[in-house]
């Protein structure tokens, strides 16, 4: 999707290893979000950021950490990957004025923990 890219697109990792997913935006949007999508659960918020170095937890934050050292990058780290973290991860961005604009989503990262 224009203005937001996620990397890698696919990853297979072993249980217990750390994994970092990257979200990069060129829109200079203030807000950035990490969601996971699982069958039967829809999208659930993991963490979000409302500015450089400003982050907060979402609904399913256990086992995940994030960092935002510059406006354009939002990193999601699985500190010690578990099979329950096998999922599709989506990054999203939004304007400062959230009342009038929707989110723009990346194409997702499919993570498999074996």
């Amino acid at each position, binding site marked *: 999707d224009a203005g937001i890219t996620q990397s890698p697109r696919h990853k297979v990792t072993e249980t217990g290893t750390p994994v970092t997913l990257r979200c990069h935006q060129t829109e200079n949007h203030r807000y950035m979000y990490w969601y996971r999508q699982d069958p039967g659960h*829809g999208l659930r918020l993991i963490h979000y950021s409302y500015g450089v170095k400003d982050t907060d937890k979402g609904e399913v934050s256990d086992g995940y950490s994030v960092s935002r050292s510059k406006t354009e990058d939002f990193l999601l780290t699985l500190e010690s990957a578990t099979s329950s973290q096998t999922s599709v991860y989506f990054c999203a961005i939004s304007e400062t004025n959230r009342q009038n604009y*929707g*989110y723009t*989503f990346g194409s997702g990262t499919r993570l498999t923990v074996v």
Partner: protein
Amino acid sequence: SQQGEEDPQALSIQEGENATMNCSYKTSINNLQWYRQNSGRGLVHLILIRSNEREKHSGRLRVTLDTSKKSSSLLITASRAADTASYFCATDGVQGGSEKLVFGKGMKLTVNP
């Protein structure tokens, strides 16, 4: 926990027919949004309706919002095979400090040619 819940969970129609999807939510909102997701892709924003609006149109899409019933509907008119996708409603709540959308589980629309 999910705020919005789409109904039905799956809908199959013929090309040219209208498709109606419903969303119910639990708490007060600033706005409600609808998204589409094609298989294997990210979500795409379709339309946003604010809490003080009752109806909104965008091309073949018509969204209504009834805040007294805490419900919204998305109507796709004259459906096409390309409309086959999953559709999600999402709510932007009014809770203090809330800065995030909460998504429903989604519903799958199949439009048969």
